[in-house]
């Protein structure tokens, strides 16, 4: 059973220099009670994807076609009010910068109370909920923490508080956008352990976006790889990391220094840059930088499926 299904989503932005095709024919599903990872580098369209799901696209963005199905409803067709009722309750978000969610001039306790504005509980009950949540994310001395302001906490703690706030309403889906990128390695580990624990307890699904391959491998059951606005490969974590099909995924894994066993001094890279998305690309989006391309790659590839492991590449034979 899928909690979120993206079907053939196409999103573009109107700019001074023409239309920018930010997402092209994006399809994937987030099952219930599952952690799905999204891997991609700058310019892959991750932010556009999140904003589309949340109904927060900029004014010059529009959904050209496709659906975002959440609980049998196409979120794109919902009104502003309906989306507001979903955001924060059924779908909540954690960002890379915890200050993206935390108001610097209001105490943590007040903010956690405000989040519960839809609930009919009394103030004291809401306060207790907040304390319980802070305990779950292992903030020491939660009663006192409620009275402090965000700047009094360290970066790692702020991130844990924003996770607590995101999960307080027990959403069905948590979207985590690079939540650990700004944290040091030891904090990063602690944070993903925490996310794993909370996910099990609450039973929500998590859509975890990161360009840090190690974290994705540790945390996620299913993974999708995005490049320049398209999902070029999707499957289980094992499939992606042990048997990647798409040339971009393969190259990306090669570049991760953690995977290199040979300590020779020259590091692999992917030469070139992502293509300009203003002009709709003819053929495969990765063609210019691909090491195994052929004539046929000048035509748009379809999704080739090997069971539930799917890659958008001519060179991949479906079976």
């Amino acid at each position, binding site marked *: 059973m899928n909690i979120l299904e993206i079907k053939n989503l196409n999103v573009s932005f*109107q*700019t*001074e220099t023409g239309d920018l095709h930010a997402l092209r024919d994006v399809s994937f599903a987030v099952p219930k009670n599952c952690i799905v990872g999204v891997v991609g580098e700058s310019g892959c369209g991750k932010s556009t994807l999140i904003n589309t799901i949340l109904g927060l696209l*900029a*004014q*010059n963005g529009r959904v050209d076609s496709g659906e975002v199905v959440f609980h049998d409803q196409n979120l794109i067709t919902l009104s502003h009010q309906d989306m507001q009722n979903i955001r924060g309750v059924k779908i909540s978000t954690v960002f890379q910068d915890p200050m993206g969610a935390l108001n610097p001039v209001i105490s943590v306790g007040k903010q956690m109370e405000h989040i519960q504005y839809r609930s009919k509980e009394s103030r004291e009950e809401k306060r207790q909920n907040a304390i319980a949540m802070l305990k779950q994310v292992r903030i020491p001395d939660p009663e006192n923490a409620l009275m402090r302001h965000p700047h009094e906490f360290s970066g790692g703690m702020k991130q844990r508080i924003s996770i607590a706030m995101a999960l307080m309403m027990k959403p069905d889906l948590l979207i985590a956008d690079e939540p650990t990128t700004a944290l040091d390695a030891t904090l990063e580990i602690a944070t993903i352990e925490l996310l794993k624990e909370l996910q099990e307890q609450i039973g929500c699904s998590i859509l975890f976006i990161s360009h840090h391959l190690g974290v994705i491998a540790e945390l996620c059951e299913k993974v999708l790889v995005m490049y320049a606005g398209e999902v070029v490969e999707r499957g289980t974590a094992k499939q992606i990391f042990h048997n990647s099909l798409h040339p971009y995924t393969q190259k990306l894994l090669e570049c991760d220094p953690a995977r290199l066993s040979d300590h020779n001094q020259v590091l692999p890279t992917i030469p070139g840059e992502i293509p300009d998305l203003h002009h709709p690309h003819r053929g495969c989006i990765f063609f210019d930088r691909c090491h195994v391309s052929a004539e046929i790659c000048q035509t748009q590839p379809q999704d080739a499926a090997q069971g539930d492991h799917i890659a958008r590449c001519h060179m991949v034979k479906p079976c």
Partner: protein
Amino acid sequence: MSAVVYEMKKSLLKIMREPLGALGISLVILMIFSAIFADLIASADPSKISPRDRFLPPSFDHLMGTDQLGRDLFARILHGGRIALAVALFTTAVSLIIGTVLGLLAGYGPRWLDNVLLLLFDTVKSFPTVMLALALVTLFGPSLTSVIIVVVLVNVPGYARIIRTQTLTLKSAEFVTAAQSMGASTMRILRVHMLPNTIGPLLILVSMDIPVVIAIEAGMSFLGLGVRPPTPSWGAILNDGFTAIRDTPWIAVAGGLPIILTTLGFTFLGETLRDIFDPRMKRR
């Protein structure tokens, strides 16, 4: 240098695409043009007194009529444009230079200097413009000099504060640290790194301030504190027309119309510039 020209051309295009911007820039150009070529456009002598021709309504010979001394109003307002233009551009330039230098010093220099300058700005700003005008007129007598000094004093604190705020923000920017690490002198850092990056927002404000400057000049002249007759000033003409407004309204119109058009022109231009350079503006 070619980069500057390129940027200017790009900005001009953007301005022309907005209806208000195009209107604004047209009005401004019209005003500047008519002031510069006042002699050619209006054949009459603005100072020629002709008692026979007093209070004549607008006609072919006198496009805007004549005033209480028989002087051709059309010629007067075109020449008045020169005063307005001179005051506006000259004082703005002087305010800009002084404000920028003081702002850079306050922002980049030591704390004590910042405190002293801020105190200075706040003191000057606390005087209402009219009082300042009166005080200066007492010292220098009503004249163009008084007008200029009033305008400069009124504008400098505001400009300096803007530059100061921008400078403070940029002081800890990495490219400034990089310059320091390369051994750049303070002068170089201020001139090459701070100045170009702080002056943008100020230039936009300045273009929106020009109508204010014109209004100050007009206001002072209206009150008799500005340029002395027979020098034509829009404010003076407006004053003349004010007393005679019931029977000979065209004089007031002659004085007021150029003020309105110029103010609208610069305001539209300034607002368009601000909208263009504000990165947060979403495209419609």
